[in-house]
């Protein structure tokens, strides 16, 4: 199976968690914990502040059960991602289509990675537009499965 290198590079098995359900702040904090030690991130506060500030501007629940909290930080060189699979839904995550958020993919990029950053957001959201792909992800039981489903190259 072909792998999308860009997505694969951003992800890591240990940054994929399964929470069942939960509240938005808890899920975001759990993902921040997974990403805070990425090279270039100065402190947990910096990352946390940027992520929550972006949520204040507009919720990143983009609809179709998907949320992509994201931010750009000075000093970060490579895009990093962390994934939370929550089949039971995140109760207070506002989304564009009103449907509950069940999959949260957090993206942290460098301040100067403007294009790669937007491409990554567009790539992930595009991939999960297909209901089948979404359902397979939500049914996944291991980090390996999630990794594969997200990173596999589409024809």
């Amino acid at each position, binding site marked *: 199976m072909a792998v999308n290198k860009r997505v694969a590079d951003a992800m890591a098995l240990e940054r994929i968690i399964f929470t069942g359900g939960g509240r938005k702040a808890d899920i975001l904090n759990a993902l921040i914990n997974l990403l805070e030690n990425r090279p270039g991130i100065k402190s947990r506060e910096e990352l946390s502040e940027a992520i929550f500030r*972006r949520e204040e*501007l*507009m919720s*990143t629940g*983009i*609809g179709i059960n998907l949320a*992509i909290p*994201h931010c*750009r930080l000075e000093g970060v060189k490579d895009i990093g991602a962390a994934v939370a699979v929550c089949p039971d839904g995140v109760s207070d995550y506002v989304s*564009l289509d009103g449907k509950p958020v069940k999959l949260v993919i957090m993206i942290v990029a460098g*301040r100067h990675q*403007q*294009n790669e*950053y*937007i*491409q990554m*957001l*567009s790539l992930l*959201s*595009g991939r999960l*537009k297909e209901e089948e792909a979404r359902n397979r992800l939500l049914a996944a039981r291991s980090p390996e499965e999630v990794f594969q489903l997200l990173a596999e190259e589409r024809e």
Partner: protein
Amino acid sequence: MNFQPGILLIFGIAIFGGLLSSLVFKKARVPQVIGYIAAGVIFGQTVLGLITPEDIQRLTPFNYFALGIIGFLVGSEIHFEDMKKYGRQFSLILLGEGLLSFTLVGGAVFFILYQVTGILPLALAGAVVFGAIASATDPASTINVLWEYRAAGVLTTTIIAIVALDDALAMFLYGLGTSLAQILTGGEADIVGELLKVGLELGASLALGTASGGLMALVIRKTKTADTLFVMSLGILLICIGLSVWLNLDVILAAMFAGVTVANAVPERSKEVVKQIRGISTPIYILFFALVGARLSLGSMPGWLWIIVGAYVILRSFGKWFGAWIGAKLSRADKNVARYTGMSLFAQGGVAIGLSIMASSHLSNILIEPGLSLGDVIIFGVTATTLIVQIMGPLLVKLSVKLAKEAGRNITVEDVLARNRVDQGGIREVPVVAPETPLREVIIRFGQGESSFIPVVDREGVFRGTVLFTALKAAFQDPGTWDWLVAEDFLHRTRTWVTPAQTQQDAVAMMDQLHREHLPVIEDEKSRRWVGMVDRKGLLTAARRELLPAAGGEAAGAGS
């Protein structure tokens, strides 16, 4: 290779000494030209003898070059519109000052020479040559003072036009005078032939100058890069100067017509070339005037010649002043023009000295006393009077423009930009977006405007950065992202901005440096509160508009 260290050393001494001396004179609020000439007098025959007549002889080509540059710059100040508007006024003033100084000086010289020699034809010959030379004014030092004090206005325009034109009048009177003198003193010359020769010379200078200027205008229209343009224009100017030397035409007049043609054929685009040529003119001026000073030799003159010198200076000055006044009154010119034009025309330089050198070769066979020809008398006389009026002249030009309140009025767009703060009419309100504005709306904003970026301002009014049009590229391909991405996701944190207290010149300089057309304006570095935007085009347009009332005021002044 013909290497002449002597000449280069003279260049160095004259330029360095001239500038040094002018700085001393500037401290005493005396126009700098006088400093250049004074340095020349010190280095030349009169005092130190560092610069010998042979050196000056060897530097003749340089003098032509300098006269050409001066002529070109003078010509570029003459605009047909002014001529049309003030043509009658200019010609009446020109005839008034030229003819009156010719008549008064000629009369006095005739009287003195006749008393000394008792020979009527000789006295008459000397009189017409001195008279003709007296009618000339030195455009170079006069205009140098006008530039130094940034003069502008109806008086300044009049002075420029008169000094540019009265060399032609002087040459005409001179041609008439020398042929008359030669006929009267028994030489062979026919007056019609001589006049024809002078007419031909003036016509040919005019034709050569106009052709050179036309070629230059063509080059200006076709060439894009400023450097090429400058070098080509300088080349054409040198060819024009060289040709007029070779063809025995008047260098100043030819170069002047080149300047007139360029300035009127491509008024806007020639400004850059004129500016660049003016930029290289300072050392040339210094050297030229230092050499004028060095040429003067004030030691060996008979006593009665000093009487001629005294009479010449007094009567020429009176003739210029009163003649210009009569011309101005007859043409109902502005009262400042009537009062001050004449006293701004006292300087005499290149043309007068040139004519005196020509006269000395024409009239060297006419002896007044053993060892002293009429030619020598003319050379001595003109040299001495030049020194006196070159010191007096620039001072009076300065006084005139100060009294007429025209000093410091020649302001440029750059001056206005340097004077005005960014908040003095420079700031425009532009559409801004908030950090939370959805991408879809940001894209619509870009569609409505022409800017390549949109400022992002938060609810507190703080400027947070910009969204660059180029940053949206990645998002264009995926309209699915337009509803959930916001301006903040594309934020470009910029530190390039200006504050309202900075000058507009600072703003334009920063835009030049960044190759940008716009800049954000924030209240201050600390608060970063959003104020608006400045753009280069707007600033320049406003500055040009601000210059207009000055021109209007000038016209109103002319009527009062």
